[in-house]
């Protein structure tokens, strides 16, 4: 909605607002028409745009790969299978490099994380106004097309990873071993409160840093695209082109970092003493 009636700050705020579904002030359920309404909905609300786009992208990823998996033969691979095998090999190399235990979950988890985040980040490269104008044309007040610029999406993933870390820590070390790891180091049993504090921060920082790193990077990238979009149209390409090219790197890098750190965290969860 880049109409001339909007001021710059309104335009920016508009682009950064999710399409939120929840309990409206007038008592009914529906889509928030303003940012204030969305804020007042509290916790029990859904960001429909994040949900929709991330689901579509995840489905696309799984559709492509399950198609490749269904046609996978040991014979001469075709184009799609070649691509899938190339990606799988890349993931497997990463997992083998960082993960020392044996767990059949880690590699598919890494593949899903990498490709899903990669696709979601890639949405950042679609010019910011295209999807907006399209969404407004069908009557949606807001539409944020990049799910990874919504902390709900990044925290959703990092919490999933965190739960796996907790599960495998307890499974491999036993509940006592895991609690011992949290309380008996680095200062021995007499420094228990300090140990718990340090290790607790260490533990909690894993999902938080995972989520915030991805969110911050994509949010900042999106913000810069929006700012570039405020320039006169004939000047935009001078900045948006280099930034988009640079962003291709960011998109891949962030997906890779999220994947690698997930592998590393799960590896730490599998190690008896570190």
């Amino acid at each position, binding site marked *: 909605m880049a109409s001339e009636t909007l001021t710059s700050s309104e335009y920016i705020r508009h682009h950064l607002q999710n399409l939120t579904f929840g309990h409206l002030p007038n008592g009914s359920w529906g889509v928030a028409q303003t940012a204030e309404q969305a804020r007042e909905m509290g916790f029990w609300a859904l*960001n429909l745009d994040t949900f929709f786009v991330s689901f579509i992208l995840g489905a696309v990823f799984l559709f492509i790969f399950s198609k490749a998996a269904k046609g996978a033969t040991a014979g001469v691979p075709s184009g799609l299978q070649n691509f899938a095998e190339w990606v799988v090999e890349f993931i497997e190399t990463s997992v083998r490099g960082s993960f020392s235990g044996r767990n059949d979950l880690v590699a598919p*988890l890494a593949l899903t994380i990498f490709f899903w985040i990669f696709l979601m980040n890639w949405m950042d490269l679609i010019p910011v106004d295209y999807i907006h104008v399209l969404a407004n044309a069908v009557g949606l007040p807001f539409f944020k097309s990049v799910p990874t610029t919504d902390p709900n999406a990044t925290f959703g993933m990092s919490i999933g990873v965190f739960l796996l870390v907790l599960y495998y820590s307890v499974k491999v070390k036993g509940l006592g071993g895991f609690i011992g790891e949290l309380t008996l180091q680095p200062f021995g049993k007499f420094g228990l409160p300090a140990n718990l504090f340090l290790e607790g921060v260490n533990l909690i920082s894993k999902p938080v840093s995972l989520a915030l790193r991805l969110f911050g990077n994509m949010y900042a990238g999106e913000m810069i695209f929006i700012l570039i979009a405020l320039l006169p149209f004939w000047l935009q390409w001078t900045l948006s082109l280099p930034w988009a090219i640079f962003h291709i790197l960011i998109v891949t890098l962030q997906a890779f970092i999220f994947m690698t750190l997930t592998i590393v965290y799960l590896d730490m969860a599998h190690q008896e003493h570190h």
Partner: protein
Amino acid sequence: MNINATLLGQTIMFVMFVWFCMKFVWPPITNAMGERAKRIADGLAAGERGKSELDLATKRSLEILHEAKQKAAEVIAQAESRAAQIVDEAKAGAREEGERLLNGAKAEIEQEVFRAREALRDQVAALAVAGAEKILRHEVDAAKHAELLKSIQSEL
């Protein structure tokens, strides 16, 4: 940018995607890759084996060829010696036969000579007797002097 229930939904979605990927995507692809790796390894091993077998076969064929050549040379040498033997035998046989014929002929000639001499003697005796008869027509009695005539005949 509010934290809301989307967080839970995204977590559930994430778990579902990972589960799906782990169940239906990852195993078939890695299985196919592993199987292909095995097949390629097998193929390479088979190629290696085939190559060594070819080497062996080449060596064996050379050996057989060599043997066959040797045998052929042996057979030729045998045949040659046999041929020489046959020729020698034939020569010896021919010589023997010739000698035998010669001897036969000689014996026959001797016999003929003997027989001719006998006949001649008979005739000479008869002639002598006839001459003597003519001369001594009366004095000589053939029956009386047969013994005498006979001794003359044997002296001739």
